Structures are given as structure tokens and as C-alpha cells.
């Protein structure tokens, strides 16, 4: 087990190095000079060649590509993510400010979609063909297809603008004003989790339907166990393996979705930061943002793979 985890972690590090190289090269080899954009946007507008060279030197952009890469990686190892050209801010500080907001949103939506997705899926499978099955299956099929940003706009229109039930948009820290914060989060968390919720419902339904056909479930019924015991002890644990796989994949989706949802609801999280940085070719922020996201995804996948052993002791890591 330990060897397995260590090997996977090493593989993960390799993957992350490839990601950093990939992002680094893509950002620099594709057209577009961040300094030109920066200069074009600033009010002064009268930058001489000399000023440009000075700026270039200041941000280390006059060095060769391999040196720039080494500088960046060296910084990461020391916990420094560099300085944003555009916002003139320390990227570490920016990220530390924005990541918790996205995590707040993302973790809430993952937990809620996980609980409700498995619950709805189980109901559908155990009451196959009855009305809850039909209703939830249709809703789940709609849920995996609805564009999240559009659902967000619909919710804003009906719940916030027409009915006035919830604040339109924005983000407040739960430590400042818990009730406002929670009310502001209802719609974004729903939109961010909608796809996962629907996908998990579908997956739980189909994997439960597979499990209930197994011999050991028939045996459990035959020996007179109550339905609750069969579902809790025999069905759920076995049906959850493919569900956990999906949950792992959703970690990436949450970050992707956060870019859209944070834009719709005007939430100053990691997604918005990344989007703005991409627009202004802000190398340092994009690089660090992508690195953080992919590290999270790699760790989540490792956690998923390890958890298989708990759900099904027959799975061994050798």
C-alpha cells in the first residue's frame, strides 16, 4: 500500500512537471506580448524602448526561456509564485485570497451533489419504473445537458429578480455575515453542482441496478434481511465504486465550472482570477492557477484510487 501511494505520488509529480512545461511553453510560444498589453492598457501610453527593456528586466522576461522556467520552478519550491505583471501584486497573496472562495463554493457543491446524487440514484434504482424513477431520471438527463451559466441566469431572473427570494449576486465571507453569505451561495452552489448531481444520479442508478441483480443480494433477501439492512450494508458500498470515480472526475469539472459560475454571479474566486488573467496574458497568475488546479485534480484522483480498496477489499494495491 505504501509503495503504491509513493509510486503514484511520484507519477503525480511527473504529471505536474509536464503540466508546468506545457502551460509555460503555450503561454510563451503563442502570439501576444504581456508587456505590450500592459503598456497599451496603462494610462501613460508613452513608454520608450528603454522603459520597456527595464520592465522586461524587472519581470525577468529578458532571460532565456529555460532560465525563466527555472526561475519560476525555483520560486514555487520556496512557496513564491511570482509577481503579476498586470495587477502588480504578489501572486501568492492573490491566490491565497481567491482560492478559499472557490473552495468554499466547490466543496459545498461537491458534498451536496454527492449526497443528493447518491440518494436520488438509489431511489430510482430501488423503485425502478415507479414515478420517482421517471421524474428523477428525466431531471438527471436534463441536468447533465443544461449549460450551467444559463441555469444561473434563469435562477437569477426568477428567484432573485422576480421573486426577490435571494440576493442577485456577489460573495460575502461566512465569517463576516453568515446568513447573507449562505443566501448568496444558494444559486451558485446549485449551478456548480448541477452537473455532478445529475451525473451521480445517473451513475448510482445504473450501478445499483447492476448490483441488485447479483446473487449475494438474492441471498440476503432469501435469509430474510430487512430492506434497510440490504441497502445499507450490501448495495450501497458495492454500488459506490463507479460513483466515487465520477466524483473524482468532478473535481476538475468544478474548477472548470467555477470560471463560468463565478463570472455569472460576480464572485471573486479563483475562476474569475484565472479568466481575467487569461484575458490580460498575465503569465504568472495563469501558470500558478493551472498548477494549483492540476495538483488538486491529481491528488483527488489518487484519493479516489485509494478509496476503492475501502469500498471493495478485494481490490489490492500491489
Amino acid at each position, binding site marked *: 500500500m505504501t509503495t503504491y501511494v509513493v509510486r503514484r505520488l511520484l507519477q503525480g509529480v511527473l504529471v505536474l512537471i509536464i503540466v508546468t512545461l506545457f502551460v509555460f511553453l503555450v503561454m510563451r510560444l503563442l502570439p501576444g506580448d504581456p508587456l505590450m498589453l500592459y503598456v497599451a492598457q496603462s494610462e501613460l501610453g508613452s513608454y520608450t524602448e528603454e522603459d520597456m527593456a527595464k520592465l522586461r528586466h524587472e519581470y525577468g522576461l529578458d532571460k532565456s526561456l529555460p532560465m525563466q522556467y527555472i526561475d519560476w520552478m525555483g520560486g514555487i519550491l520556496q512557496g513564491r509564485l511570482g509577481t503579476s505583471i498586470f495587477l502588480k501584486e504578489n501572486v501568492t497573496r492573490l491566490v491565497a485570497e481567491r482560492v478559499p472562495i472557490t473552495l468554499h463554493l466547490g466543496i459545498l457543491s461537491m458534498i451536496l451533489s454527492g449526497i443528493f446524487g447518491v440518494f436520488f440514484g438509489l431511489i430510482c434504482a430501488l423503485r425502478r419504473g415507479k414515478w420517482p424513477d421517471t421524474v428523477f431520471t428525466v431531471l438527471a*438527463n436534463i441536468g447533465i445537458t443544461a449549460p450551467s451559466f444559463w441555469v444561473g441566469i434563469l435562477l437569477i431572473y426568477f428567484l432573485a429578480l422576480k421573486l426577490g427570494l435571494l440576493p442577485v449576486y456577489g460573495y460575502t465571507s461566512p465569517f463576516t455575515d453568515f446568513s447573507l453569505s449562505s443566501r448568496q451561495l444558494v444559486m451558485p452552489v446549485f449551478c456548480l453542482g448541477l452537473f455532478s448531481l445529475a451525473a451521480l444520479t445517473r451513475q448510482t442508478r445504473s450501478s445499483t441496478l447492476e448490483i441488485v441483480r447479483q446473487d449475494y443480494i438474492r441471498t440476503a433477501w432469501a435469509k430474510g434481511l430487512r430492506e434497510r439492512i440490504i441497502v445499507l450494508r450490501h448495495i450501497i458500498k458495492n454500488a459506490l465504486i463507479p460513483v466515487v470515480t465520477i466524483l473524482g472526475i468532478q473535481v476538475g469539472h468544478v474548477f472548470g465550472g467555477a470560471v463560468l459560475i463565478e463570472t455569472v454571479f460576480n464572485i471573486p474566486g479563483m475562476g474569475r482570477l484565472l479568466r481575467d488573467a487569461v484575458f490580460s496574458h498575465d503569465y504568472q497568475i495563469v501558470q500558478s492557477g493551472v498548477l494549483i488546479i*492540476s495538483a488538486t485534480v491529481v491528488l483527488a484522483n489518487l484519493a479516489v484510487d485509494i478509496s476503492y480498496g475501502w469500498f471493495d477489499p478485494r481490490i489490492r494495491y500491489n
Partner: protein
Amino acid sequence: MAISNETPVGADAAQLAVTKHYSETRRVIRIFFGRSLNVVGLVFILIFVITAIFAPWLAPYDPYKMDLGNQLKQPSLGHLLGTDPLGRDTLSRIIYGSRTSIVIGIVAVGASAVIGFILGLVAAHFGGITFAIIMRFTDALMSVPMLIIALIIASLLGGGIVNVIIALGVGSIAGKIRMMCGMALTIKQNDYITAGRSIGVSDWRLMLLHIFPNCFPPLLVMITMQLGSVILAEAGLSFLGIGIVPPTCAWGSMVNDGYKYLLTNPVLSFAPGLAIMIVVFGFNMMGDGLRDSLDPKLRGAF
């Protein structure tokens, strides 16, 4: 069983005498059309394709023609879905938007499928260092969400259909490599591959004529589903303002443009979003249907 009672017209009589003819294609069609949601999906896709092809005849107005005297009109008989801030007819723009979606969907998925399947086959077939390099590269691509890869590439290349296709193609390639590779590794174990190798069949011939066709059904399902998700991702990019640049009609950017007028003209962002949803729903249901009808594990279950 309606099918086994039918006499296949023009079938070889000698063969009929030996075995009862059982058509695989018919079985697939029967299962596919047996579930109403699949049919709904197919109908949605047909409507989508027909709309895209015949857009100039179906659209009541020129989607690019501005009419400044007719801005932000509410839905009426003249303009069924109203007009946008530049006085353009929303319905016509949605009809033309189907062309953008379909072109991007088909080209991005097609191109990434060709490259992804070849890379997957090569990785599985040659193994060793080739496998390690291709798969680590795939892992890296998979660890970054598709939308973010596409966002970075599209923003650097700039908007426009070709660049969005490149961005979404790169963003969606990793899943195809991994799936192809996984299936090819299983099929490689079969005796007929060893047999082929022993009589000196070339590597490429083995890969393309012996391994690939055996992976085809699941790949077809994957491609169908991906058409939906790429169209969804394109809408997301355009919504963020990076995808398709104005004045080209794209559903995602229409939703974004309409968002500013949500209070007065909600239909401006509701309608194109609904169009995206219907099309993606169509492809998902069709993919589900294909999986149910092509899956050998379910063979004989109906």
C-alpha cells in the same frame, strides 16, 4: 419476435436453410428505437442538422442586418423572439447559430478523434517508452479541466471559429487517447492478433484493420457524447467572450449579450440557452441509446 419471422428478401437460400438469419443491424435498430428518449434525442439532432443546413431559407430575417429603429423589441408576431440591442432578429440569429455549433462540434471532435485514436493505438500497440510518453502526456492534459485548456489556448490564439476548434480539439483529446489505449490493450491479448503477427502482418495493418474495428462501438458512443460536450464547451467559451467573435452568431455569446438586458428582455438570453440545451440533450440521449443497443453485454437481454 417480429424480426425472426420475416423472410430476408434476397438472402442466400442455402444459408437460410442452415441457420436462422439474424441481422445484427436490425437488432441494434430495434433496441435503439425501443426507448422513447432515444427517439426524442434523434429527432432533436435531426432538427438541429436540418436547421443548420437550411438556415438561409428558415430564418425570417437576415441575422446580421441591424435595424436601429427596432432595438430590444419584445417577442411579437413580426419578431417571434424579439430583437437584440442592435435591432437584429433573435430567432434568425439562433437559427444561424446552429451552423456555428455544428461546424465547431463536428470538426473539433472529428480532428481530435483522428489524432487521439491514432495516439491511443500507437501507445497500446508499441508499449514501452512510447506508451509511457503518450500516457504521461495524456495524464497531464487530463489533470486540467477541458474548459481551462480551451480558455488558455483560445485567448492566446484569439477568437474565431478555427481557433476555437483548435482549442476545443486539444482540450478534448486526452479522454480519446486513454479510452482507445485501454481498449486496444485488451484486444491485443486476443489470439487473432498473435496469429496476424506470426504471419507477418505489418504493425499499421494490425492496428487499423484488426484492433481498431473491434473497438468501434464504444468509440462511436464516445464521439456522439463528445459532440454534445464540445458544443456545450464552445457555448461556455463564447459566453466568457473568448470564443466566437461578433458579429458571427453563436449561442453562448448570445446568452452573454442578453444577460445585460435580463430585467427587460429575458428572452434574449433564455432562448439561445434553451437551444444549446436541446442540442446537447439530443446528443446525450443518442449516445445513451447507441450504448444500450451496441453493448455486447446486453446482447440477448431484449
